[in-house]
Structure formats: structure tokens, C-alpha cells
């Protein structure tokens, strides 16, 4: 009951029809300031995070999370695959190891179309063409494409000669891989077909490993890498295989994105700091305006701790509503941007062609919580100063 009274007092001190316009304006401005600060931080994180996440998702959707390769670009074959498979058995979290054969080729679709493409063969794949490539070749699922490679090498009576291979295939599906680069150049097909095209018997360009859900790819990759090192170098072999998480290929990109995000977060956090300074002067002003009222409340028997709490509650109300409005505003803007005003990007530069906003739940929580905590801290000053006055002084204050 008493608590409810203190809240009511705090609420009417910051916002009431009977307040002077100045008080209401000061309250409204400080709420707006906090809201802008919170919204700016959340929206920034939504789009920076959305960008990073979209790229990471696109990359991981098309590639196994772990990449196993021979440093220096050496060849691998089915024998290596078998060896790595048995080594990976001993690494917890790794579910399977597959071979990958990926090489450039020339493709033609509808009459008159021809372009370069990256052909990737893996087990259990069906012939899938990236959307942009399909458009360029003017084909749909069910249409025929021809893939030509000059990578086949044959040894004939005349010595080594390069032999062209042209294979005609029916497209099973056309897919949006999520990453522009893949969409305009990638063709995925079964391993046997790939070996046919490239006349590669048993040859592989890299291996990929999958991990069970809940396993951290970075950890799994480190463990597999150690196991590979022990097996090969420990066994006296000069050449050994390495394993890295696939996303580490793009480590520099993710680092740059992360740095940019930190820099922008700092700048926007400064906006919030300014808003909180504004809030603290608003609270001081509101405290001045109500000094006499507090004196009257003391005369009627309100305890000093009650006075203190009223001050804190005022800060909580202004800061809290600012934070809530900021959150709501950012949620609505992210939703509206995604739904009605998508931000178009140049896919050839940014890999993805629409910038997705993902509401950053954790960040939003942290931003809101810290904003409210700081609000409470800045309201402590007027709260303590209210305590240093005797009720009588406050009453004489006209």
C-alpha cells in the first residue's frame, strides 16, 4: 500500500495534467532522449548482427562446418578420406566426413548461353544450380545443361594431352543459396558425375566434416586438427592435413564486421550517455519543483526512506518508459523495414542482396537493463540531496 502511494507520487511528479508545462516538457524530452538512445543501439545491432548472421548462415548452409585440406594445396583422394574418417571417429561431436571435388568448368544452358561456373561434387547431392546462374543460362528445373571441362588429362601415344569432356545433364533444382557469389556461379552435383566431368578417378580437392547440433565447430575443429597432426606428423609423415572451421576462411571479414560494430556501438552508446545526463538534470529540476511538496509530505509523516524512494522511482519511471518506448520503436522499425521497406544491397559487393534486421534479444535486454540501472544511479543524487534538507527547510522554500 505504502509502496503504491510512493509510486503514485513519483508518477504525478513527472507527469500529471496539473504539472506545469515546463515539467511535462522536461519529462517528455528526457523520455524521448532515452528512447532515441536505446532505439539507436538496438537498431544498429539488429542490422549489423543481421548482416553478419545472414552471411554466416549462407556460408554454413552451403558448406560443411569443418574444412579439411592439405596445406599448400596438395591433392587428396579417397584413401585420404578413409584415413580421416577413421581419425575423426575418435573426435567427439563429429558425425561424418565427406569428400569434396570442386573445380571450374564451362556451362551452357538454353541455346546461345555459355558461362563459367564452379562445379562441386559431393556424395548424396542432386544437380542444383544457383538462381542467378540459372537465370543467366535461361533454364529451370528439368531443363538440360551441358558442362564442359578441360581438366581431363590423358596419356596417349603422343604424350600428355588435355582432353575436353562435355557432359549433358538434367537440372534437378534451382536454388537460392543465400550468398550472391554462390547464386551466380555454383553448381552442386553428385560426386560420380563430377568425377566424370573432370575425369578424376578417386581424386578430391578437400574434405568436409559435419558436427552434431550443439557442438561448437571451432572446438571440434581444434580437436580434429590436433588428432590429424598427431596421426600424420607424429607418425613421421612430412605432409599432414589441417582442419579449420569453415567460417575461419572468412575470419578477416567477420573480424572487420565485429570491429565496425564495436566502433558504432561506442558512438551510439555516447548518445545514450548524453540522454542520461539530460535525464539527470530533468530529475534534478523535478526534485526542485517538488521540494516543498516533499516538505509537506514529511510534515504529514512520510519517512526519509519514503522521500528517497520517491526520487528513485521518478528516475525509474522516466528512464524505464524511455527504454520501453525505445525498444518498442526499434522492434516496430525493424519489422517495418524487413516487411515493407527492405534495404537493397548490391549482392556482388555484399554477398547478400537484402539487409535483414534481426531483433537482438540479448543486446536489447542488456541495453534496457543497463539504461535503467544508470537511471537509478542518476536519480540517487537528487534522492540524497532531498534527504539532506530538514522538512522545515523544504517548507520555507517558496
Amino acid at each position, binding site marked *: *500500500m*505504502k509502496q503504491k*502511494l510512493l509510486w503514485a507520487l513519483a508518477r*504525478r*511528479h513527472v507527469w*500529471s*495534467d*496539473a*504539472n506545469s508545462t515546463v515539467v511535462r516538457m522536461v519529462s517528455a524530452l528526457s523520455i524521448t532522449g532515452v528512447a532515441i538512445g536505446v532505439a539507436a543501439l538496438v537498431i544498429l545491432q539488429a542490422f549489423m548482427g543481421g548482416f553478419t548472421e545472414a552471411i554466416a548462415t549462407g556460408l554454413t548452409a552451403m558448406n560443411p562446418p569443418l574444412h579439411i585440406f592439405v596445406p599448400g594445396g596438395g591433392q587428396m583422394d579417397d584413401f585420404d578420406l578413409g584415413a580421416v574418417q577413421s581419425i575423426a571417429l575418435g573426435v567427439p561431436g563429429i558425425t561424418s566426413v565427406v569428400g569434396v571435388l570442386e573445380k571450374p568448368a564451362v556451362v551452357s544452358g538454353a541455346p546461345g548461353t555459355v558461362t563459367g561456373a564452379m562445379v562441386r561434387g559431393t556424395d548424396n547431392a542432386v544437380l542444383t544450380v544457383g538462381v542467378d546462374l540459372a537465370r543467366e543460362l535461361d533454364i529451370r528445373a528439368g531443363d538440360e545443361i551441358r558442362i564442359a571441362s578441360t581438366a581431363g588429362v590423358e596419356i596417349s601415344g603422343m604424350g600428355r594431352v588435355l582432353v575436353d569432356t562435355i557432359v549433358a545433364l538434367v537440372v534437378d533444382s534451382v536454388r537460392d543459396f543465400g550468398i550472391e557469389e554462390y547464386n551466380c556461379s555454383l553448381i552442386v552435383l553428385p560426386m560420380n558425375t563430377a568425377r566424370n566431368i573432370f575425369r578424376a578417378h578417386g581424386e578430391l580437392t578437400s574434405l568436409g566434416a559435419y558436427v552434431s547440433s550443439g557442438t561448437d565447430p571451432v572446438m571440434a575443429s581444434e580437436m580434429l586438427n590436433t588428432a590429424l597432426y598427431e596421426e600424420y606428423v607424429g607418425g613421421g609423415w612430412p605432409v599432414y592435413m589441417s582442419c579449420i572451421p569453415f567460417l575461419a576462411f572468412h575470419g578477416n571479414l567477420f573480424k572487420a564486421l565485429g570491429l565496425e560494430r564495436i566502433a558504432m556501438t561506442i558512438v551510439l552508446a555516447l548518445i545514450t550517455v548524453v540522454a542520461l545526463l539530460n535525464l539527470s538534470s530533468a530529475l534534478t529540476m523535478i526534485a526542485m519543483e517538488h521540494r*516543498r*511538496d516533499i*516538505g*509537506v*509530505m*514529511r*510534515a*504529514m*509523516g*512520510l*519517512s*526519509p*526512506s*519514503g522521500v528517497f524512494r520517491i526520487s528513485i522511482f521518478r528516475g525509474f519511471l522516466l528512464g524505464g518508459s524511455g527504454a520501453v518506448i525505445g525498444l518498442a520503436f526499434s522492434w516496430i522499425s525493424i519489422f517495418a523495414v524487413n516487411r515493407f521497406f527492405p534495404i537493397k544491397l548490391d549482392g556482388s559487393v555484399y554477398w547478400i542482396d537484402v539487409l535483414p534486421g534481426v531483433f537482438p534479444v540479448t543486446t536489447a535486454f542488456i541495453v534496457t537493463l543497463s539504461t535503467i540501472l544508470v537511471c537509478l544511479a542518476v536519480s540517487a543524487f537528487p534522492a540524497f540531496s532531498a534527504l539532506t534538507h*530538514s*522538512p*522545515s*527547510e523544504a*517548507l*520555507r522554500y*517558496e
Partner: protein
Amino acid sequence: MLAASGIYCSYGSADASIKVLRGADITIKVGEVVAVTGPSGSGKSTLLHALGLLERPDRGKVLVCDEDGWELSTRKRAELRNRKIGFVFQFHHLLEEFTLRENVMMPCLIAGESSEEAASKADRLLEKVGIIHRASHFPSRVSGGEKQRAAIARAIVMKPDIVLADEPTGNLDADTSVEVENLIMKLADEGSRSFLLATHSQDLASAVHRRFSLSSGVLSEVL
């Protein structure tokens, strides 16, 4: 009921201090109405604040219902103010953001009563002081006399043993003053409640049971 002895009050630092009260003694019995008069600046407000446990005197003892008010903890003292003492100020000092009813409810809410209980008490008192039709208005929308009536209702809503009124009519025009004075005397006549009025008003001062005058920091009874 209220007994104060040897009250010394001063303002300012030790070297440049103004001694406002020099050993004031006063005892007010149950149901007694007492007036304190004195020129402006003589220390009437200071005396009332010391007796009302709002400003600690340099020396002296204030007994409210046999409890030494300045010996209690801050919380206990606040409670004592809430239950035993009512205040009326020269300027009504109503809370601007609250309606007259809510203002009158305030001491009850501070005491922890439910809002229904407090509202019904407030309405009864607003009725008694004749402004029930203004109950849901904000102070800025009612006249000075009505504000002061609401302030008086607020002062007595907790049925305090003593009401301290600091120039309750000092800020009102002559006619309204008379109305408010009559109201105070009517409430005073109800018996069990004591009043201490600081006033310039001769009418009010002459209507009370006992009078004190304050000059040069000395409080003396006018016989």
C-alpha cells in the same frame, strides 16, 4: 498533550547566528486552543516547526503525548507526526498534482490505510468543512478559502491530538478569513483536539482559551 520546555533555536553559523528562541516553555492541555502572536520575524514559524518535530531545536524538550519527540528515531518521529500532529500552513501547501480528496487522503495513505478507507474518511471531512462538491478538483482550480479548508481537513483527518496552524488565515481576504476562523473554532469546540495557532489576527487571537506572545525570542503568556 503537548509540552515544550527550554526551547532554544538559532539560525546560521556559530559566529553569525541569529538566536530566534531563547528558552521557550509552553504546555497545551487536551482540548485547549492556544494562540501565539508576535511581530513578523519574531519566530512563530520557528516555534511551530520545533514543536511539530520538523526542525530540531538547539536545546529543549518537546513532549508529544508524553513522548520525547526529538529523542525518537527518525522513523518513529515521522510516525508520531503522522498520528498525533496535524499541520496547517499559511499557504495551503496542498499537493498540486492531487485532487482535494487525494490531498486529504494523503496522511491516511502514509499511515498505510487502504485507499477506500482513506477516501471515505476524506469525504466525511470535506463534507464537514463544506467543500465536498470540490472533492475531485485540483487545488489550482479552487479558491484560496477552499484550499485552506481542504488543508484543514487534511490536518485533522488522522484525528491528531494537536493541530499546529501557522497563520492559517494570513493569506486570505477578510471575509474568507472569518469563515476559516469560524471553521477552526468550530473544530476546536469539538473538544478532544488541541490547537496551537500562530496568528496576526486579533479576532482569532481573542477567541482562543489562552494566548502567548512572542518577542525577542521570549514566549510569555498574555493574561
